């Protein structure tokens, strides 16, 4: 993990450096850092789940479960690979799949000896998105054409499959998929995003 061997004593975190707070939870079981994470993220996770139709009670319960998992799995968080918000999103998403979609999800196992690295591709940058960069990405997403932004939100918030979106909106399935690809291409083509996604 990042600079683990360089640190002596408590981790210094300040402001909204959530990446470092998760590391503090992992390395020192730092409750203050955890409470700061809770206060920032739990109400947002609750809001995220309610957008998908969860009742306030269920959303509250799942947000608590998400926070508990953050505490338990902080050791597996790698700040070089994922921004705090990205990692926390994936945990909340998985809680939603378990509890609301009631479906089993298969995940890549990061320790799988069969994982292949592509040597021809550029080496990934040395750190994940910082909070500021997450906001830059969010701003770029705001500028997506309405038809693309709508699909992105329906997928993330309402947990609709592309076939469900096509059936609901009357947009042909092929168009739904090409709009998603166009949204991704557009973000990748944005100068600022290129710097942070590389």
């Amino acid at each position, binding site marked *: 993990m990042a600079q683990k061997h360089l640190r002596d004593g408590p981790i210094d975190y300040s402001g909204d450096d959530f990446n470092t707070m998760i590391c503090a939870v992992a390395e020192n079981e730092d409750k203050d850092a955890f409470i700061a994470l809770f*206060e920032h993220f739990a*109400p947002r996770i609750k809001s995220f789940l309610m957008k998908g139709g969860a009742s306030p009670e269920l959303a509250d319960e799942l947000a608590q479960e998400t926070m508990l998992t953050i505490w338990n799995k902080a050791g597996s968080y790698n700040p070089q690979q994922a921004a705090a918000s990205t990692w926390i999103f994936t945990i909340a998403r998985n809680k939603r799949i378990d509890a609301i979609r009631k479906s089993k999800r*298969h995940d890549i196992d990061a320790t*799988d000896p*069969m994982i292949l690295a592509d040597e021809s591709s550029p080496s990934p940058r040395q750190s994940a998105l910082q909070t500021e960069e997450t906001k830059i990405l969010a701003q770029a*997403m705001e500028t997506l054409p309405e038809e693309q932004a709508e699909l992105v939100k329906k997928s993330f918030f309402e947990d*609709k499959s592309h076939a469900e979106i096509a059936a609901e909106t009357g947009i042909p399935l092929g168009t739904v*998929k090409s709009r998603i690809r166009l949204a991704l291409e557009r973000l990748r083509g944005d100068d600022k995003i290129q710097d942070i996604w590389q």
Partner: protein
Amino acid sequence: MSTDLKQSMQSGYEALLFGYAAGNLDEAQSLVVATHLTFSEKARRIVKQCEDMGGALIETQCEPVSMCDSALNNVLSRIENETKCAEHKHACCQKEALGFEIPKPLAETVTGEPIKWKSLFPGMKAYDLPLSCNKSVARFMKADPGHVSPHHSHGGMEITLVLDGAFSDETGLYHRGDLIVTDEDCDHTPKACPKNGCICLVVSSEPIKLTGIASLLNPFLKP
């Protein structure tokens, strides 16, 4: 290959990875994507980009909703009282099932299940994976060297991951680790590698439909 078909396959591929990141896939679909991710760094990067989008939406589009008064204390007391449950995953990349190593998500699914191939038509065998959800069907398909599948189209989306050997069709040549997403527009004739044949993991939302004279076999293809 026509540009349209190529574009449509590329859209299908990216939309599938996006759906995986957003959490919208069913069990069989998530299994084939997770297995593909083990093989492809490029795919892992796309999923990561989509997950960054999810993180950005949580950060900026989810107006905080107050947690109930006892929430924080609840979680803190569970932290005090519950021991961390470490996750143990024992499934190794087993060779027994298929005769070659397979990534963990798949190995976990076939553990303890000897593969009992059933013949689909001459030169082609299949094995349906035991999944708890039956929304989409996941099956191994094994084609003899040089086998040419009957001309067929798909009722819905079909996701094919090459696990061993290779195959080619009108759209290209595919090797171990490659993932191909086709939909009902794609009417194709896959041909297995003449030397090694091909074993694929195929996930389909609806049964394959043979076209032309081979359509007489359709009643036998129902899962």
